[in-house]
């Protein structure tokens, strides 16, 4: 490349890079929770397409299995609990305040949650199985668990870029809530 062309291209490149950087700083990054859906009844049934309908499989083993063929990021520890959680909240599956839902099989793995309630308030949602699309989506179940606690139910928005996981999570959550 001739010197003059190099200089012109160089200056333009710097300008373009700077512009796109500042646009990027203002942009919403990758995975984010969308605004809540308008309430539509007690439990908003997740819309699922015919081909990818999450199917409830009560028979699926409930123990966390690392041999899963899908990308199962096993999260056995309680992950998210609000600061206002009652002091009696050690989460044991046998305690009266917590229920484990069915394992929901969906496109990218299996999702199963345990819900801890105090009265009518959800104080914690623990992930028992949380399969996601891939490593970059591993944070999605945590985001959803947090959203479930603050929405006190399944009426919260979609995580953009993780629609299937959101839907499966909501089913898993509702199956646990139904046991109270």
């Amino acid at each position, binding site marked *: *490349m*001739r010197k003059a*062309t190099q200089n012109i*291209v160089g200056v333009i*490149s710097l300008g*373009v*890079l700077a512009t*796109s*950087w500042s*646009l*990027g*700083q203002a*942009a*919403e*990054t*990758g995975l984010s929770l969308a605004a809540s859906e308008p309430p539509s009844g007690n439990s908003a049934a997740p819309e699922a397409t015919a081909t990818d309908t999450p199917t409830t499989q009560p028979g699926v083993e409930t123990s966390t299995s690392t041999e*899963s*063929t*899908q*990308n*199962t*990021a096993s999260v056995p520890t309680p992950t998210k609990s609000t600061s206002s959680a009652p002091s009696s909240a050690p989460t044991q599956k046998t305690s009266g305040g917590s229920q484990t839902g069915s394992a929901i099989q969906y496109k990218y793995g299996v999702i199963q949650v345990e819900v801890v309630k105090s009265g009518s308030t959800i104080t914690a949602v623990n992930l028992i199985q949380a399969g996601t*699309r*891939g*490593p*970059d989506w*591993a944070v999605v179940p945590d985001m959803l668990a947090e959203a479930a606690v603050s929405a006190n139910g399944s009426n919260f928005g979609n995580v953009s*870029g993780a629609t299937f996981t959101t839907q499966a999570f909501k089913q898993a959550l509702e199956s646990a809530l139904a046991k109270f």
Partner: protein
Amino acid sequence: MSNSPANQLRLTEPNKAVRIGERKVVRIKRAQDIIETLAWSIVMAVLVMFLIDGGLKGVTDLPTTLGAISRLTSLLGTALLLILMLLIARVPWIDKFYGHDGATVVHKRLGKPVLYLIVAHFLASLVQYSINNGKDLVTTFWWFVFDVQDMLLATIGLFLMIVVVLTSINFARQKMSYEAWYFVHLVSYISVAVAVPHIFTSGSDVAGKPVQTTIWVSLYLFVFLNILWFRVIIPIRKSFRKRLVLAQTVRESSDTVSLYLTGKHLQKIEAVSGQFYFLRFLTPTQWWRPHPFSISAAPNGEYLRFTIGDRGDDTKLMQNLKPGTPIAIEGPYGLFTEERRTKEKVVLIASGIGIPPIRTLAESMAARPGDITVIYRVRNENDASLLNEIKEICRRREFPLHIIAGPRANKNSWLNDDRSNNPDVARLTMMAPHVSEADVYVCGPEAWTHSVLKSVRKAGTPIDSIHSEEYAW
């Protein structure tokens, strides 16, 4: 044997006229600027997509930094990889302005940077997820390979890519035969192909992003179709149409032979003097590896002729090919032609097996008597390839011819020992007084060529008027 093509010297009419002048050079440089700007804008486009997507926004701690590094290196590595592949796709609009050898040189230069970027991408991802998942590197690696979709294939691709680059560094190339290297290099297509799925299923900058997916799919398709078209379909179609067979082999010297190829539609052969073809001899053992050879007679509608030296390996086998062997061709390629000429005067300098293109240029360049000076460096005047032909051409067209025979004057000299102790530059200007205002065409072994080019530069010839072509593969 009276009808065999090699019996008498057959010369074609030289070109009637040639356009000369500086504007030719300017036009080429302008085209090069456009092509380089296009290549650069591909790199810029992936950076811009990354930045607009907020690629640097979430960088706060070590894992997110590693994530950004992993994304950036993969994007840059892939962009350069696609450019690198396009460079050897023998695309006419690249080769026309850089030459097949120029494109190959850049292709070679990009090899290592691409590998470094891809390895950096791999390592950054590995460490990032190892920290995020709280597992050690080995566990994370196994999880990646066996649990994450398409990552097993991608890892195989990385491994193959390392093998391809290792076998292509100069040190390894010197120890390997052309055939072995060629075979390993074919694997690079597999290494690229198996790495593709993981980009579209788990690439942070592609998967689930329709705009980016469209851009990357088009880039990949563009490169793939160019390779398919110019490296596979066109050569096969051309070879099939021409149906070339080896008509005759003629020994030219103790270590060179001329291959005369005949076939159909030879009047329509596109090659001009100074160009080369890749030849595949369609025998059961040799069909899969092509070899580059310059034509050694200007295309005359009757036969194509190549004069090849015995470099060992396959070229040794070629000297014993049987007449009737079918031959597939790819080409013509190369810019070592009159198209590049910008001056009235020309100096043609050849050594050893570099003579074929020089011989054809002397035959067909437009010139008046004395316009072209030919210098031919040989080991031994009694055992020099095509010597009688070049003598005959220079006699008929009245070109000064200097045959330089015998051992070198000293180890840096490209000339023989004439006991004068004159430096090479002085001897060059004595042989070709107009060298500084001439187009100089040099063809020979790499080290020798390098040494000639130094003398020519010292004699005052501007760099744009010096033409040499490497046997780059």
